[in-house]
């Protein structure tokens, strides 16, 4: 059973994230908004109260340009919000975890990190280590100093390879995704290129598309879960690099071993996250259940060997979502039609 509640924003929602919780009484979500009428962007912190239900803006930070990627974390006694923008700048916002007021902000200027509008970033859990990867083919590691940000360029493909998603796997390793359902595995101790890579092709039962999102479960750091075009969700296990496990996708179903795969969607899977709500047998060799959102308005749960579960079927695209890690049955989603939707399921 699931209950939903929507809140029109009257502005385009570029991204949504829960702010990791410091106390069970104050819950906050971060929303990146773009106002087409005034052409202004902002990052807003909203306080969230489930009973009686309310979702009110507490604080707004004007962003110089549109947000292309947004992540939240907590570090020491700060709530941390990190955003990359379409002009290539990067912003770290440190907020008070109890009332979400902004304590300080650090920035890297336009075009410092990336020359192209779209870039993706990830923050390490309970740390300030940030990795960014962009369509311009650059991979950067960002460090937080006392009063400034600095970065190190780990790689630059010179536009030959574009990266559309990035995710930490361990303090030293991370994964990126890109065109042609490609995945790259990096080790920051080994600059000069990825240490392993995967490229989807017909032999691997993957028709061509773009990876939009990656997730790596802390308990299974060798497996990279990726979601992308044509409803495709697949897992790439570093130990069996040439045999991706296809969990959903329009191109799926033809190969041996993937015969029983059903597709949850036929369009772009914009985000994929391991579902922290379903308790699965962690000793099992099966891929852990995951949640996806898609361009055709689906929010659903995929589990290997099971029929996919559709939690939402909206008339418009669900562009991003985030599972509250402290209340894993609460999901926040951004809808194409200028609205935010909450899903509470059990």
């Amino acid at each position, binding site marked *: 059973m699931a209950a939903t509640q929507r809140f029109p924003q009257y502005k385009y929602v570029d991204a949504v994230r829960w702010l990791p919780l410091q106390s069970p009484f104050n819950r906050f979500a971060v929303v990146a908004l773009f106002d087409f009428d005034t052409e202004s962007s902002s990052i807003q912190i909203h306080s969230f109260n489930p009973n009686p239900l309310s979702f009110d803006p507490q604080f707004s930070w004007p962003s110089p340009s549109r947000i292309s990627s947004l992540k939240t974390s907590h570090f020491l006694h700060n709530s941390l919000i990190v955003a990359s923008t379409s002009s290539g700048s990067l912003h770290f916002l440190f907020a008070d975890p109890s009332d979400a007021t902004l304590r300080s902000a650090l920035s890297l200027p336009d075009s410092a990190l990336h020359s*192209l509008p779209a870039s993706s970033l990830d923050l390490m859990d309970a740390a300030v280590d940030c990795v960014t990867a962009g369509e311009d083919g650059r991979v950067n590691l960002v460090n937080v100093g006392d009063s400034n940000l600095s970065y190190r360029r780990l790689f630059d493909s010179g536009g030959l390879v*574009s990266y559309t998603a990035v995710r930490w796997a361990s303090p030293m390793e991370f994964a990126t995704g890109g065109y042609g359902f490609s995945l790259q595995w990096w080790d920051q101790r080994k600059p000069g290129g990825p240490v392993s890579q995967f490229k989807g092709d017909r032999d691997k039962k993957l028709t061509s598309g773009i990876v939009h999102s990656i997730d790596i479960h802390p308990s299974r750091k060798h497996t990279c879960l990726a979601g992308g075009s044509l409803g495709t969700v697949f897992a790439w296990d570093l130990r069996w690099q040439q045999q991706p496990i296809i969990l959903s996708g329009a191109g799926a179903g033809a190969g041996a071993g993937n015969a029983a795969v059903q597709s949850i969607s036929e369009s772009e899977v914009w985000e994929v996250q391991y579902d922290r709500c379903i308790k699965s047998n962690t000793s099992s060799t099966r891929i852990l259940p995951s949640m996806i959102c898609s361009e055709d308005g689906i929010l659903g749960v995929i589990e290997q060997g099971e029929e996919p579960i559709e939690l939402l079927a909206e008339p418009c695209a669900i562009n991003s979502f985030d599972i509250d890690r402290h209340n894993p049955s609460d999901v926040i989603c951004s809808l194409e039609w200028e609205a935010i939707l909450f899903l509470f399921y059990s």
Partner: protein
Amino acid sequence: MASNAEGNGALVPFSGDSSAVYPLHHGLAPPISRLSISWSHGNTLRLSLFAGAAAKVVEVKVNGEDSEIPDAQWRRIAYGSVAPFALLQSQRSSISSLLKTPSPYHSDWWEHVLQYSKEIGSLLAGSKMHSSPIIEDPKVLVKTDEKPTCLQAAWELIEIFYVDKQSQTWLPERLVDWLADYDSLFTSTHETIHGKLVDFQKELGNIQVIEDDPRYWDLLSSALSVGWLDVVVRMLRLHGSYQQDQLSTRELENGLVEAVAVLISKMPRFCPGSAGKLGDCYKSKPEFIKAWEKWRSQITKLDRSPFWIQCDNQHTREGLRNLLQITLGNTESLCMATCYWIELYISHFLYIRPFTMGIESMYNLAEKCIQLKPRSSTHRLTGLMIGILEENTEVVLAECSREFGPWLVAHAVELLTAGSEQSEIILHEERYNLGGISIVELHRLAYAQILSSHALTWQIAPIYLTSCMKQGMGLLENLLYRQSVQHNDGLLKNIEICRLYELDHISSNIMKIAGVYHWKHGHKGTGVFWLQQAQDTICLDRIAQQLFDSVGKSISDESFKQWEGMIELLGSESNPAGGLEFLHKYRDFKKSLKKVSGGKSTDAARQAVGSLILLMKNPSTPQRFWLPLLHDSLKLLNWQDCPLLSVSETNLLLNKLQELSLAKLCPHYIEPSLPPNALSSIRLALATNLGRAILDE
């Protein structure tokens, strides 16, 4: 850009009915020699001004005329109406195909339309504030926090007359409810009962003896005349005789007030009952008539009661008896009590003709009311109402379009055709003067154009365009081509729409455009990806040809890396172009050759020779590269330590040279650009190698 200061060289727009001059600051010295105007995104006009050698581009935001509903709210309505509209269209087509007739009127089609209408209606009502206090303040006569919109009122009016067949019997009562909800809207152009009540409510705290205030009695009769029974009863209970200290001295007066209040709260009404509404509701006509006559007789009895003489408060006596006159349908009292013709019209339905009559006599009654209450100014809802009563579908559409804009017309057309086959024919017939499209299609196209012009709504325009038989698909293709390919998200959303409507040729063209865009901007990986997705073999071959150009030339490490990356990119194509196999082998050869250069490792050199022989043996290696390949390998052929090529291998290469000298005689032979002595040095190297190899063997 807003500009309001007087400036020199101001632009004067076309003067129509409501001419307005908007001065515009452009900073150019007059005279302006040329002016070009085009639409930019959304409601923005782009003006390009030329004055002598200087030029300037200015963007002017044109504000929407409807200030009642802000742009963001309009978008919310646009989003919300997509699903009901799409559902209705699919129901229409499934019913039509089931019945094998183009018009769906043989079934209970109106029920589908009613469901559609209700959904749109609740969308227009928006999210009602659910936090209204439960404890009611007795001094609150009318609620002022809820502000309905004219759009909502117009939609409901159309629904009442055209769609809701079930409540057609209770049409008068639905109109009473309609006015109760929307009377406040008319306050902008007329004096209204609602407006007077709001004013009175504000002063309520300052009035000492309410029944001595003539406005109290005027408003009581006004509220009663339009059937706002709850307001009347609440106001009556404010009467001074209810106060504890006065109850004993004014017992009789209070009895009369209470009697009137009770009678009014029991007024029979011909409608299905609804919660929170005063009056006794009757669904069947005979029962209603019986109750109505009984109620009237009770009023007449009270009116003739001897107690009135004993009531010494003149205000109370006259005020209450006037209320009774209204309930008895006294035309003069009704006319006095109401402010403008619609209020008078509604009071007629309540107290003079409580039953539905033909629409023609409803129109006559409206005309009579307009005569009694001449219009000083017209409200946009009155025009619509008269159009409906005139039974003129085209006038109704014109009013909707003129006063409420394309959204209402595009969506209300469904309501107008719900119950009448005749208006269905009028609205759906193809018209020569509209270029062969129907009125319905014309309005849908107009609405789709509005949606298309905004970055946030263009994605829903296809739903309306695909419901247009004649011009829709053409405009849809146009719309899809027009979208920017720069950003991935937008591009992918665009391609998704192509997929939904099976427009494969468009999506492959869009991917080609995206591929070329990215290629031109140096995003080679992205460019090649999209060209491959579009299966644009022409572009891909051309890119591959560029790679061939580097064959046999010395290139820097950095550009070799780029070149190698490009081969990798092109190679990921599942069906590689013919020459790619060669390029892959050539890359391997070049790589091993690079290892050799500088170093003296014979093993590496042997590997390079292996690659060279593979290349030269392979039939896919183009003949024009033979000489450059051999020229590249001079170092291998002249290897110091030992001959690297066996006798048979050297013979193979010599044979190739022989073939080349024959090929030179062909007219299409292209001479490779190599140093003039290249051929002779290759010959010499091969000959030397052959000699050494023979000795070795």
